[in-house]
């Protein structure tokens, strides 16, 4: 299911799922997904509730490993290397593929420590000025610096919901990942905070490859370059029914179900 002829210059594949199926025990939650993720582009995953969007997203940084009995068949490549290979370290994968969650989940630590935490893990001997500068750049990168620069020592949990979510983004980019996975990052936020995150995504994509799960059709059409449409099959496994440039998905989808879904006829 390759996208149809592209009108702009060809993009490089950062990640690629190849016939990936995800199981929880004997239950198949996602079936046979083959999906390229283009570098420095935003790929949105849409589809009705329970169709396995989050599960698929989490397969890209092995977060599903934390669920007992979860297993992935097929391949998920990062720069051509299968992240489920026998020799691959899940922790190393997650340092290159960061994640932002549905509900903002800052650590109950100071704003500074929230951002510095991951950096320190990778480099415990990092000098204070160096760390300061990474924290500042990350917070700037997440468009939060101006709001918090005077209260870096205060708790991250005291911020507003939208600020917390941007703090989580700052925390994720502080470790310089290649890819950012965002699991409905705006679903717990108000419209103004949502707009800010969407604007931020446009800046972030200059540096990072982004995948986002969203329930919000407007968000997918506004903010993403590519869109994946997923549906639940009769055996309750999620499958990918269409992948294309976002424009095409929302204007001229090939699949009738996609058309019904994006036009709000169900889901």
């Amino acid at each position: 299911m390759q996208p149809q002829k592209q009108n702009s210059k060809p993009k490089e594949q950062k990640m690629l799922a190849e016939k990936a199926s995800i199981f929880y025990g004997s239950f198949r939650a996602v079936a046979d997904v083959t999906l390229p993720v283009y570098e420095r582009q935003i790929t949105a995953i849409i589809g009705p509730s329970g169709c396995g969007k989050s599960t698929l997203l989490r397969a890209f940084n092995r977060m599903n490993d934390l669920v007992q009995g979860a297993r992935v068949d097929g391949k998920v490549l990062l720069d051509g290397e299968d992240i489920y290979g026998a020799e691959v370290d899940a922790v190393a994968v997650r340092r290159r593929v960061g994640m932002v969650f549905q509900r903002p989940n800052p650590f109950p630590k100071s704003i500074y420590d929230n951002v510095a935490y991951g950096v320190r893990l990778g480099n415990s001997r990092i000098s204070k000025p160096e760390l300061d500068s990474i924290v500042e750049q990350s917070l700037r990168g997440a468009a939060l610096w101006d709001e918090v620069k005077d209260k870096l020592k205060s708790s991250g949990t005291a911020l507003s919901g939208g600020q917390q979510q941007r703090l989580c983004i700052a925390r994720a980019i502080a470790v310089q990942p290649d890819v950012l996975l965002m699991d409905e990052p705006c679903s717990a936020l108000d419209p103004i905070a949502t707009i800010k995150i969407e604007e931020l995504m446009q800046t972030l994509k200059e540096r990072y490859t982004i995948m986002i799960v969203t329930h919000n059709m407007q968000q997918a059409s506004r903010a993403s370059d590519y869109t994946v449409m997923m549906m639940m099959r009769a055996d309750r496994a999620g499958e990918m029914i269409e992948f294309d440039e976002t424009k095409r998905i929302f204007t001229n989808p090939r699949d009738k179900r996609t058309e019904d879904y994006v036009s709000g006829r169900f889901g």
Partner: protein
Amino acid sequence: MTASKPPRSLKKKTRLGENVIQAFFFFCGFVSIFTTLGIVLALGSQALRFFGEPDINPIELITSIKWSPNIGEIGIWPLVTSTLMTTLLALLVAIPLGLAAAIYLSEYATPKVRNTLKPILEILAGVPTVVYGYFALTFMTPFLRSIFGTDIVKIYNMASAGLVCGIMIIPLICSMSEDALRAVPRSLREGSFGLGATKLETSLKVVLPAALSGVIAAIVVGTSRAVGETMIMATAAGAGPNFTFNPFESAETMAGHIVRISGGDIDYNSIDYTSIFIVGLTLFLMTLGLNFLSRYFVNKYREVYE
């Protein structure tokens, strides 16, 4: 943030510390298994040694009613019956009072009253048993003697120990029963009120039966505690096995016997030493059976409401 990121390998790293720590945690989890094995080994091996003694006829353990191992009399009944007597007395106190208190706290009490009374029960549950023993000997015994007469009530007697043991397990029965009662869904109560039942009728005829398996579990756990209770019995029930069903007589319970024998200077090769392990084994099996039984009942009510 540099524009070009250094390629970072995805190769597995050996994290030695991580593995050592995980191994340590696993060991910690395993300590509890060692504890159980230790208990079984300790009780079992010494019990076998006991039965291996030349003058011992194992069948007498349950056919004789005299316990005096150093002269070859090994009927365990006197210790068992006194244990059952004191347990029965304890339950006579603890079941009605604990259950009524549980119903009051779960069905009647306002949050304010509840928050005042619950800590009192918690304090009562935290009093060491040796203190209850003192209470039995210096308060309950004189009290019973003043009511029934000093001729009838011995200084050391099962009644005093049993009743005080009952007070001790009230908090246990109360809090477990209360949990079970509170797990009963509101709709059931509302259904009963809707039919014009009073609060008492609803509590006793609808809520209590619905929570029955949880309440039974509480009673079984209380029984297990009373059977294994040691210090109250050792202090107030008397020293010396006595096959009697008169609660005002002195009679040693299983746990009380173990404490008395092991408290002295005991010769590790004597039959006295091995005999307490056969008593301990009996006690362990009794409480283990009761604990399994209570788990069965707890799981039963969890299945229904959770």
